[in-house]
């Protein structure tokens, strides 16, 4: 399979008054063509920063790239100038944001917001632009598009606004769509509609999707591969089947364990992961999950484990999975 995007050892930090926050610390992954990759993890683990740094939407300063490469179709886009990035944003890579209520400009007509990027790049005439806006609203199943393009965002419901956001993102037929928690702000029935719409559009346009979420239900429904992120690092990666069937990292297991189940005994309380993620002003030198992990060992505190491959597509970063772990595990649990 052909790689569309490859992120190599990406590290992004924020310079703040209190010091440097290491939000993303050496992240490597790739996205194949026509594939959906889910990036999961709890709040503040660096998912959104990773996504925004691919689009170069982070405010710089305070944000800066510490190291790494972001290869899009083989070209390192970190090295591109702002002008060159403007050619990529929207037309090659586009993004859908979390909150459709605030992600649309309240004082601009919907139609104009949809085609704005395209008009600039392709020099469309006003009538062509209007036709394109109507087509896009049809594509995302917004009824009465001829009327709707002349309306403002406040005249749309949350679900409809997210459809408009998808229309904006897809208008130039991008190769990669980054969806940053696209359904978090929507109610459950609308969530399912939006996810179906995204799948439909992916099939139609052969778009790759990076799906950022902390909803494991959405992950199971949508994605081909799953990347588990914690404290700015990747903990485990595998196909959807591997991650859900055979999670190898204690963090992944705990994440899956905190999903409420319909068949659960009502008297049982919901599971959660005790403690909080580490402070990224001074990230731990060992495994960042060390102090919340039930199976932590002495070595976990001191050294960050390397990737341990279980299959060609499935790896985890945990000392428990190290070939030598079985022989030392007895008696060394902290």
């Amino acid at each position, binding site marked *: 399979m052909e790689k569309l995007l490859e992120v190599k050892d990406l590290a992004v930090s924020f310079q703040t008054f209190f010091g440097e926050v290491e939000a993303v610390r050496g992240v490597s992954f790739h996205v194949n063509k026509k594939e959906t990759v889910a990036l999961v993890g709890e709040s503040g683990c660096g998912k959104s920063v990773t996504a925004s740094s691919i689009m170069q939407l982070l405010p710089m300063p305070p944000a800066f790239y510490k190291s790494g490469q972001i290869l899009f179709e083989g070209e390192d886009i970190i090295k591109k100038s702002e002008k060159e990035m*403007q050619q990529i944003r929207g037309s090659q890579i*586009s993004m859908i944001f979390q909150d459709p209520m605030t992600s649309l400009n309240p004082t601009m007509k919907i139609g104009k917001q949809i085609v*704005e990027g395209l008009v*600039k790049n392709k020099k469309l005439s006003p009538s062509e632009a209007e036709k394109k806006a109507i087509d896009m609203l049809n594509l995302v199943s917004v009824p009465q598009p001829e009327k709707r393009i002349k309306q403002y965002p406040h005249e749309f419901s949350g679900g409809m606004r997210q459809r408009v956001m998808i229309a904006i993102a897809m208008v130039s037929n991008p190769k990669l769509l980054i969806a940053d928690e696209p359904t978090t702000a929507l109610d459950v029935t609308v969530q399912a509609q939006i996810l179906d719409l995204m799948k439909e559009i992916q099939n139609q346009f052969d778009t790759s999707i990076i799906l950022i979420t902390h909803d494991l239900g959405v992950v199971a429904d949508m994605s081909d591969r799953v990347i588990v992120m914690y404290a700015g690092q990747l903990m485990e990666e595998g196909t959807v089947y591997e991650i859900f069937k055979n999670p190898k990292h204690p963090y992944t297991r705990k994440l899956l364990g905190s999903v409420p189940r319909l068949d659960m005994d009502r008297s049982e309380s919901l599971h959660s992961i005790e403690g909080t993620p580490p402070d990224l002003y001074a990230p731990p030198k060992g495994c960042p999950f060390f102090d919340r992990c039930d199976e932590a060992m002495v070595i976990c505190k001191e050294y960050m484990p390397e990737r341990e491959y279980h299959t060609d597509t499935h790896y985890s970063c945990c000392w428990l999975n190290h070939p030598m772990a079985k022989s030392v595990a007895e008696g060394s649990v902290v």
Partner: protein
Amino acid sequence: MSKYVIKRLAMAIVTLWVIITITFILMHSVPGDPFANENKRIPEAVYQNLLKKYGLDKPYSQQYLMYLKNIARGDFGESMKSNTETVNEMIARGFPVSASLGLQALLIALIFGPALGAIAALYQNKFPDYISMIISIIGVSVPSFVMGTFLIQFVARKVNWIPIGGWGEWRHTLLPSIALAMMPLAQMARLMRSSMLEVIGQDYIKTAKSKGISKSAVILKHSVRNAILPIVSILGTTISNLLVGSFVIEKIFGIPGLGMFFTTSIYNRDYTLIMGITVFYAIILILMLLFVDVAYTLIDPRIRLTEEGR
């Protein structure tokens, strides 16, 4: 919308009536009257005649009703101090001067104020931000009479073609309109900076950037229009203040405007002139506030004017 405007205009008449009544009461509760002069006492008979001529010998209630009747006809009455001009004529003479100066000051404030604020926000905590905030702090804190005399001292006396005062040609308006513009300019810059900072942090700005449009398009099409509302909301009072003129500026630069009448009428206890100018100012203020409310709807489609009011 037209229904709304009509309703607002009807309400304005009630507002005007309240203003007239309060002014009338306040004016007459100040001791003395237009002809009581402390220095040279006029003969009692003359004094009584004067009171009779202007109707001041009648009871207050009658004076009040008379006045309301005249105002309803658009007649502000005769000035009690000037023998040659009616109040209407005085306003007709002074207002165009003050208004042209005010419009020019408004233009200066509107061009530079929001721009300065926007630049400050875009370069937050950098050099341009500091410069524009220094300018606006000076604008807010330096009183206009200091600004006026400062401009005369350091500009008019150095540059030959700029006069230190007077009225007639365009160059006469230059310094006073700058001095007049400083305060609103500074206010607008500060408002624009804070509202721009808020808008820049909004999600829809990130959406706009993610479309791949240029930085300037993001600023002009997406940020400014959303950030300008607070400025529009102070525009009503700012415009009416500028149009009616400033006593201080007009005094310093020797400009025959309306602002001068405003103050002199009060210490002369020129009843008709006080009333005339107050009512005139109130009318302009009410119209400007209405204009601002209508302007809101043009800028922000979420705001709708209904008959129930905003």
